[in-house]
């Protein structure tokens, strides 16, 4: 039963964290290159464009959910499983979500990079 809770927590953290990253990436692409925008229109314009973007608000909501899911997960389940499993799996799910929802060109180099980093992050816990 404890294992079931642990993997439930991992699934919740990974899905909400991936949603947060994808939404934030979409929001920032809609805002445009922050450096160029700041030079053209100033910091106030950058902030206004970010805060008015609905995807940014949804991203913050998803990231907050991921944060609280992590807190609850840690109180129910084994830290040594929940933290490395959720952190490493997020790299792979983000690559998949970026290909599906952000139309990013995820070639074999990027797939391999995501898998290598995910495996590496998992090993860091031991």
């Amino acid at each position: 039963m404890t294992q079931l809770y642990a993997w439930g927590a991992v699934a919740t953290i990974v899905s909400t964290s991936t949603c947060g990253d994808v939404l934030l990436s979409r929001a920032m692409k809609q805002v445009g290159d922050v450096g160029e925008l700041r030079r053209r229109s100033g910091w106030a314009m950058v902030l206004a464009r970010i805060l008015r973007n609905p995807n940014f608000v949804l991203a913050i909501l998803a990231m907050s959910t991921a944060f609280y899911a992590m807190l609850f997960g840690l109180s129910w389940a084994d830290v040594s499983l929940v933290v490395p499993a959720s952190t490493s799996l997020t790299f792979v799910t983000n690559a998949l979500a970026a290909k599906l929802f952000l139309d990013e060109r995820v070639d074999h180099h990027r797939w391999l990079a995501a898998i290598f980093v995910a495996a590496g992050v998992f090993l860091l816990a031991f």
Partner: protein
Amino acid sequence: MSLRKYLVLAGVAVFAVTGDTLVSSGMKQIGRVALDHLPNIILVVFHPQIALGILFLLAFFACYMAALSWADLTYVLPTTSVSFILLTLVAKFILHENVSLTRWLGVVLISVGIGLVSQGPVLTPQPRRTQANDCLAETASGRMEP
């Protein structure tokens, strides 16, 4: 890619590691926050080390957002995972912790991943995005003209 953009990516990694380390060591100094004294969790932000850690984490988030404004998510995430390598080096050489062979193998795998992604393009060309940037440029140049 310009030096400024490399600095932003480095900022994502360095600020995340510094922020996490400061908050973590600050929380260790404070000790456990009892569930029946939950309001105490708000007061911990006034601890100098935790406050500084939160500032670094805000700087991390600002750099992460800036990076996502000109780079793909599948480029930013693996390249900024250099933070995990930094964290291991800090653990070994500054905190003098024992770093296992498995952990060093993890560092090698992350390094290979970073090497693989950094050879490719930073951003996938998107027709709609180019149009949006052109509109932005026109708006800005139109505003500058009398």
